[in-house]
């Protein structure tokens, strides 16, 4: 046990820099895509949002959604599902736990575990 602890404490400062550089490169790659794809809509794009909503409502009322190809319909439903999933991730953040509501159980368990138990 003491040998394992010693080995770990000797390895950690040597590994810290490569791990940090690896994380940095991954974060850079993520940011390169995210600053275009995940950006929240700016005020000059609100009119497009409005048009998009109107287009959806129009296609639902006139029945034009029945004229889509199956592939387009499947893609649209996948995108819709992904947008719904963000709501559930927000709910996880708001309630402070990954798996379920935990109203009475946060006492007694230290920090990273109480969100998973």
């Amino acid at each position, binding site marked *: 046990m003491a040998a394992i602890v010693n080995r770990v404490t000797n390895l950690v400062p040597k590994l810290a820099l490569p791990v940090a550089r690896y994380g940095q490169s991954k974060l850079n790659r993520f940011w390169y895509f995210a600053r275009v794809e995940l950006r*929240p809509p700016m005020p000059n794009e609100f009119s497009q949002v409005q048009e998009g909503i109107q287009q959806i409502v129009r296609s639902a009322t006139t029945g034009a959604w029945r004229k889509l190809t199956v592939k387009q319909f499947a893609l649209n439903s996948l995108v819709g599902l992904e947008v*719904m999933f*963000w*709501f559930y991730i927000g*709910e996880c953040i*708001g309630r402070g736990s990954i798996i379920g509501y935990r109203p009475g159980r946060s006492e007694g368990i230290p920090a990273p575990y109480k969100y998973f138990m």
Partner: protein
Amino acid sequence: MATAVPKSVSPLIRAGRWSLLLVGVVYGSIHNNTLKKREQRVRQKEIDRVTHHAIDEIAEKKIKADQSMIDLAYAAGVDPNQARIKQQGQEKKSH
């Protein structure tokens, strides 16, 4: 995939994502607060119930002990009331 270029996503989808994220955070915290309050009330009721149960148990034990002392006195041929009066008289004399 190093030649991948970020694709511009329609603003409607982006607006939907971020607004649903905020709505989810708000809803999660509100619902969590509601459940916490409900859990507090249930917990208080349970604590009261357990306390009353413990008090009842102690009272029952005391009653049984007193009853067994009285039965012992009768079995030994002593009248428990007279014995009690005599004991109180002795305590008053010693004070």
